[in-house]
């Protein structure tokens, strides 16, 4: 089904954009390294491929006049998600370019900002590229070499967005979101173990509430059983 394919492609693009954002956040910090720059390059190229694939699929569907009204509304919704994703990707790419210029890695005088990060981003990159482990094969001055390519790719993305605006006429504000506010809470499960040091104590409180309710129920059950037993004893004796 076309809808499922579109959704899958969009999810993939969304995932790659999120990973790219994580990586751009680390540029200039102590986790920055040649590997990071290579990861950025690969992620960005993957994102572009996905973006082109998405665009082709969605434009063919939206230009198709035989699509039903509900389907069309659904595709317009997907289109809005796609264009917003692409906007965020473009902004991140521009920032990556600027930060890349500001923080060249091999210059001894320019020191990286000590942001408190010590680990690498290879896990994030692996997630983006959908591989188990990342392989690093680039040269040692990729941080400088890559910037030219990055500029060209930014221009490409810009042109693609412009073409999209011109070809497909979807007014963004007419799309209604399917998810209600707070929808993100329903599907994600336990968080507790992963966050350390309790940034706030509030997390504890909600946890306690649930356990309190459980304790109350158990207590009530025990009490009822005790009363029933006592009545039986009284009756029998």
């Amino acid at each position, binding site marked *: 089904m076309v809808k499922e394919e579109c959704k899958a492609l969009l*999810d993939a693009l*969304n*995932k790659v*954009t*999120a*990973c790219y*954002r*994580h990586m751009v*956040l*680390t*540029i*200039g*910090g*102590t*986790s920055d390294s040649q590997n990071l720059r290579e990861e950025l390059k690969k992620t960005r190229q993957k994102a572009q491929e996905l973006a082109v694939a998405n665009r082709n699929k969605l434009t063919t569907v939206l230009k198709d006049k035989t699509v039903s009204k509900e389907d069309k509304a659904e595709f317009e919704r997907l289109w*809005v*998600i796609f264009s*917003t*994703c692409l906007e*965020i990707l473009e*902004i991140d790419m521009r*920032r990556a370019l600027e*930060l890349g210029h*500001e*923080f060249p890695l091999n210059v001894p005088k*320019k*020191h*990286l*900002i*000590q*942001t*408190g*990060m*010590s*680990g690498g*981003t290879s*896990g*994030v990159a692996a*997630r983006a590229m959908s591989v188990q482990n990342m392989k690093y094969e680039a040269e040692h001055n990729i941080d400088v070499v890559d910037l030219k390519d990055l500029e060209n790719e930014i221009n490409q993305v810009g042109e693609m967005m412009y073409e999209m605006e011109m070809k497909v006429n979807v007014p963004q504000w007419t*799309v*209604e*979101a*399917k*998810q209600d*506010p*707070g*929808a*993100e*809470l329903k*599907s*994600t499960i336990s*968080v507790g173990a*992963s*966050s*350390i*040091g309790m*940034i706030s104590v*509030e*997390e504890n409180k*909600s946890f306690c509430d649930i356990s309190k309710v459980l304790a109350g129920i158990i207590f009530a059950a025990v009490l009822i059983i005790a009363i029933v037993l006592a009545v039986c004893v009284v009756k029998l004796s």
Partner: protein
Amino acid sequence: MLPDRRVEALMMEMQNPDTGIKTQTQRVLITNIPHAVAGNDIFQWILQRLQITEEEALHLGDLFVKYGYIYPLLDPKNLTLKTDGSLYRFQTPYFWPAQSWPADDTDYAIYLAKKNIKRKGILEEYEKEHYNMLNQKINYKWDFVIMQAKEQYKAGKERKKADRYALDCQERAYWLVNRTPPGMLDVLEYGLDRVTDPNEKKKKTIAVYRREIMYYQQAIMKTRVKSSVSLEGLVKYSEQFLSNDPILSGCLPSNPWITDDPDFWDLNAKLVEVPTRTRVERWAFNFNELIRDPKGRQNFQLFLRKEFSGENLSFWEACEDLKYGDQSKVKEKAEEIYKLFLAPGARRWINIDGTTMGITVKGLQHPHRYVLDAAQTHIYMLMKKDSYGRYLKSPVYKEMLAKAVVPQETVKKSSTFLFGRRQLRSSPSPIILRQQEEEAKAREAAATVDITQVMSKLDRRSQLKKEPPK
């Protein structure tokens, strides 16, 4: 004002392992997070590097924290630099403030959604409000916001625990600066952005250079006044107007803001019966003062009528009305003015030279607000050079000067109003004031018609007298 690029250079210098600031490790429960710096160390480093006074260094360091280059670890909402051992950390360059990268609503929505996931729905009050407001504002993007929030959250799990904690702190610090909670000082609230971003690194292409060359060429050709001349003019103006300035020389009867006594405003109303002496004296300073004061214009008009040049001032007033009136009535007003003042044989014909008349008539074919500017300037200069001098020596002006009132100074009432509140009456409604002005104008128009009709009647009578004796 967003900070300069040089702050970033300083930030990078602070990282130097030899000459920069020494870092410590922050201990959070069981993990150690590196790269924490003490507030005192930051302060000392700034002091020593920039060679400034202690006060300045403290202020500068404080600004660094307020703008989000450095964030405090233990008390994140208190964005000040404390010169003791309290710990801070450097913000990642992505989150540094810059005019070209303003904090985006979509990003904020994603951040709040992520926080929602992490804290299982427990957000602070102001964050909840923002969340709901954003949901309404960017509702069409909401699906994307939620998708992206979930993905960013999951991607974050791929990082080491300590890094995740540091990332959380960074993001929180960034949004505390860019979306300040109520009660905190919003450093970034400085009004509108400048049109040009001074920190933007523009690529110098040929077009940019061409524009620069054009700009500098025009700048060279600009006529300039010597500063000695302009300063002299400024000094003369200040000396002349010093006695009239209500703040510098005190005002009579009393400053309403201090004594709560609005007499000053009543006595200096636009078209008051008897103006104050200082006001009338000001009309003698220069012609502009006279013509900009409605009472002065009224008095001047009286004088001009006696000289039979009242139509000049009326024409000037009509032009002002055209310039500052409704756009929809521009055409209509321009035609009326032409019929009344400029057409050959008009009722109140004004005397302007041939070239100006030619320009004006041509312009009136396509009337706009400023079509009568040339004629208005001509008449203005005529009145200024000719009638103004005579006016100042005339009995009309001298009478007004004699009649002018010098109000008594009122003493500031001591606060005996412990139990009673002074009845403050409101000033008259602008609608009523406007109506009064219109009535006054109409009355004046009626009055002038009389004179010209009288003149024309006299003319006709003399003509008739000439004829019968034939």
